């Protein structure tokens, strides 16, 4: 499964040297403060960890440009690495390459569903220029409670930047959907 390995390499670019990998493993435990079942590694937000003789440099990428959870994640990475005995820890935010829900791990998606949030359905496809079209076509979103595909979007925008609000027409429960980006 070469393609999958390549995809994982982009989504979770783990360092190859042992010292950096050890620090990565620690940083990777930090969770999203809004969705605490997901780690920053599950999300694909953790982009690099580099240990040098006297410092650790970490880079994260924001899910959404204005996501306020980034500040908490950055502080938590600083805290967890400092707590593990590392000194001179720095955390940088990088924008490129832009984060996509395609980087979310399969384990992360399973944890999301268990938590009651529908995982992103399908892949991000940058739409070209030209008309948005009056109707945006999306794949059916599965209800995380009863697995019905008979669901509908109530609102594009939900409780956080990354989610939209859905309701299930079978079990009648509303639920969050982690929208494709």
């Amino acid at each position: 499964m070469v393609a999958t390995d390549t995809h994982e390499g982009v989504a979770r670019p783990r360092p190859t040297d042992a010292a950096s990998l050890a620090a990565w493993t620690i940083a990777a435990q930090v969770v999203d403060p809004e969705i605490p079942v997901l780690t920053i590694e599950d999300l694909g937000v953790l982009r690099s960890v580099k240990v040098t003789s006297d410092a650790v440099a970490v880079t994260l990428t924001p899910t959404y440009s204005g996501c306020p959870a980034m500040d908490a994640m950055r502080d938590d990475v600083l805290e967890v690495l400092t707590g593990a005995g590392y000194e001179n820890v720095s955390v940088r935010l990088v924008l490129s390459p832009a984060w996509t829900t395609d980087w979310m791990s399969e384990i992360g998606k399973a944890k999301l569903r268990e938590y009651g949030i529908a995982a992103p359905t399908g892949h991000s496809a940058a739409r070209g220029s030209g008309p948005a079209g009056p109707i945006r076509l999306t794949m059916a979103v599965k209800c995380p409670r009863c697995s019905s595909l008979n669901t509908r979007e109530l609102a594009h925008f939900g409780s956080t930047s990354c989610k939209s609000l859905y309701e299930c027409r079978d079990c009648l429960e509303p639920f969050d959907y982690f929208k494709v980006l």
Partner: protein
Amino acid sequence: MSDDQKADAPAADHGHVAVDVDTLDAELIEGPSDATTDIAEYALWLGDDSLVLAQQLAAWISRAPELEEDVALGNVALDLIGHARSLLHYAGTASNRTEDDLAYWRTEPDFRSLHIVEQPNGDFAHTIARQFVVAHYLFELYNRLRASADATLAAIAAKAVKEVDYHRDHSTQWVLRLAHGTDESRRRIITAFSDLWPYVDEIFRDEPLIDRLEGIAVRPSSLRAAFDDAIAPVLAEAELEVPHGFVASGGGRTGRHSEHLAFLLAEMQVLTRAHPGASW
């Protein structure tokens, strides 16, 4: 400190605030290099558009027609604040000013935003019409800016275009809903487009700065056709006509603004200026 001094206070001299370099560094989204003066000016154009529009949209929170719209407009504002932060931070690298310094300590003539973003929220239809125009423009802009020769602008654009895509979709759905809703909702969206259209022209005007940023900036006039093509099918579906009429003078890119911007800035900046360095 006099008001005059405050307004132009440099980055490291916000009244009694010491700017902590470590803290700031961590907050900033870093690009590979500092902006040149011209690129910084261009980043201000785009950053100020997003900042002013975000401030306007935030005013809807708790006042939108339904709770979902409070949330939606708040989320759109949050995305725009994110873009503004990146762009203003980058602009500030040319003059050693921080994003906050640029947002809170410049006065009206120093803002480079378009007149359309400072148009009042009005009723919900006016906000949706403004959102429809600006989101479609920003989508075409960022879609092209992704290919900028400037790596930082390209990175900001590649991130922003995906978010703005949702904004244009949101406003499109509302334009259709209002146009095909009640007689009253249709009357209001028609009025909104009619009031707003004079300010559309300025979006696509080229300024001398653009000539100096070939390959880096996107020439505004080159976006007009794509913008028109993108909105045409929506307006057709909504059975709305593109309004005709006078074209507003504009001047936002050179710091000439309407009376609306100063009030907006006063509200946005009052806390920082009254309590320099306040944190919570």
